[in-house]
């Protein structure tokens, strides 16, 4: 367990952890505004990547593919909210029914994409190429890593500022604290819900361009990151945006550390073990405190 390997673990862990943190954030904005855990978040990420791959294969320039993928996935997220969630909320459907509907959306988007686009994974180039930098003799950082760190910081900061300064953002926060009071103050819950789903979809769509260059994108790509995203959220807690950030980074570092130093049985299960541990002992998450919902 050399210093070099610890540094490497931290760098790799923070890298994948940032992605988990962003996905957790996308779950966060939706859950605080509506109380809904949207299983389909991973799928929006996948759709953004698949659209990107498709546009690139049609010969469109990178920036167009990038925007197209993100806009497409976000639109899909908003469409799902309007077509499925809104009627359910209007009918005051139970939590169980809503979760089932979201699970259904997840299946349809995932396997529908598989049917339309095909089953093969495709590579997606990152915005910064694949340059490798060496620190010392044994520590590697990749150009994509900087993109990831930077994007994560930027997105978290933007979301926090937006929630404090913009009218829509403040409406979201008020709804999170007390929906009844929000209505009294003139907030339209339908609009807030749509904005929450849209923002969640947007964040997930951007994540695709951070994640896919490391691996590949195919119709199954959204499955595991989707799960890790909400695990990270519950580990960190839903009382503030710090929750998804801490939860995600911690999960990432622990996963990589376990994979590096422990036999694989620990590495694979560590995410779930950690979550159960937290939920049993401190359900409000690590950054607990006043729960917003």
């Amino acid at each position, binding site marked *: 367990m050399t210093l070099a390997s610890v540094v*490497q673990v931290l760098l790799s862990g923070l890298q994948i952890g940032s992605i988990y943190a962003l996905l957790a954030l996308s779950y966060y904005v939706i859950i605080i505004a509506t109380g809904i855990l949207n299983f389909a978040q991973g799928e929006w990420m996948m759709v953004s990547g698949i659209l990107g791959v498709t546009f690139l294969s049609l010969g469109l320039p990178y920036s167009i593919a990038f925007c197209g993928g993100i806009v497409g996935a976000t639109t899909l997220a908003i469409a799902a909210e309007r077509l499925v969630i809104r009627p359910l909320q209007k009918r005051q459907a139970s939590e169980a029914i809503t979760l089932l509907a979201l699970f259904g959306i997840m299946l349809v988007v995932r396997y529908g994409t598989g049917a339309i686009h095909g*089953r093969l994974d495709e590579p997606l180039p990152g915005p910064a190429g694949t340059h490798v930098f060496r620190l010392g003799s044994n520590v590697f950082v990749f150009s994509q890593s900087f993109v990831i760190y930077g994007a994560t910081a930027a997105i978290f900061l933007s979301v926090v500022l937006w929630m404090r300064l913009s009218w829509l953002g403040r409406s979201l926060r008020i709804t999170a604290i007390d929906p009844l009071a929000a209505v009294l103050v003139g907030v339209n819950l339908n609009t807030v819900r749509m904005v929450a789903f849209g923002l969640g979809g947007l964040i997930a769509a951007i994540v695709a361009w951070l994640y896919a260059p490391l691996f590949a994108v*195919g119709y199954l790509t959204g499955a595991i990151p989707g799960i890790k995203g909400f695990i990270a959220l519950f580990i960190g807690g839903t009382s503030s945006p710090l929750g998804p950030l801490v939860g995600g980074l911690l999960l990432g570092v622990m996963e990589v550390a376990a994979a590096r130093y422990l036999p694989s049985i620990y590495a694979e299960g560590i995410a779930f073990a950690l979550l159960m541990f937290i939920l049993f002992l401190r359900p409000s998450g690590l950054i607990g405190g006043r729960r917003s919902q």
Partner: protein
Amino acid sequence: MNQGKVAGALICAAALTLTLTSAAFGEPATGKPILIGAHLDQAKQASYYSLLQKDSIDLFVKEFNEAGGVNGRPVQVLFEDDENNPVTTAIKVDKLASEGVEYIVSIGSSATGLATQARASELKIPHGAPANLAEQLTTDPPKRYYFRIPLRGKYELGAVAQYLHKKYGAPKLAVVRDTTQTGLVISDQWINDLKKDGFNITALEQVTPGSTEASSQALRVKDSGADVVIVVGGSIPDLANYIKAHKLFENPAPLIGNSLFTAGGFLKLAGIAAEGFVYPDAIDPSRTEIQEIDGKLVKAYGDRLKNQAVALQAWEYMRVVCDAIKRAGSDDREKIRDAMEATKDFPIAIGPPGMTLTYSPTNHDLFTSPDQVVLREVRNGEFGPPLRWR
């Protein structure tokens, strides 16, 4: 809930039922078709090579039927999804059997191929695989109803071992595999045989399907000081992740794989990391017979089917099976089995030039020696020509 909604729901249910049942209506047959069953992985890890084989079989059957089929009767292939799960496979074999198929072709992974071997043998239906590599499929004596043509795990491994000895002497090896059932089956046999051959295995790493982490494995392999890294298994995307990490972390050790990597998508996924990757192949691309079949596949399906070994093997396998059915002169499964076993000096495009297929009661395989195995290298982003190293 008012009557309107109830009526609406009933109409939806009726429409749904109609749509679903209409999917069960087939196309009208021109003569009593000869039914061949096939199971494949439609959506999981093995779908990479399953779907390529299915496309090849579809094209072959179309051509074959247009040329008259078996004495005027068309061949019809019934495909079932095995979900890359041996339990599901056994159920689908039962289903195909109940539909009266005369032969079952396994175009899924080796794990499902093994399940089919167990079940179809019980049901006494001749069956086999164009591209299942697992050594366990070949037994001594061979299973009575099982016939295949792909490289045997034992021989491709034997060729790789010869190559390692010739080129590197006594290199220290690291083995990287995926944890799908097929991956474990194939890699365990490689590890055993490599050890028996005297190689020192300094590291054994696993990549879990769908996992997001291959850098730890790559770093541990690097730390182990292996001279050559063997990448072997059943799931291409996961192993491609390892190969990319291997190159990213600047590990100079050369990479050698099994013949799985000839299936679609590997080159695209691994990108430049695949450059220099050495792997065994059943196909010698310089043979004109191969170029002819390849041309037909590319014409029908585009570059996606270019140079795809599993597709070429599926084509040739169907050719052998249809020929046996013709020679059997009957729909009886036993007679078809006997006709398959009687196949002698049948020219086949797989393997080195001049290769012919001969089955016998003691041999149900095409390949009989590691010297028939071709080793190829990925060059300039393509599956390159055969290496001349012997």
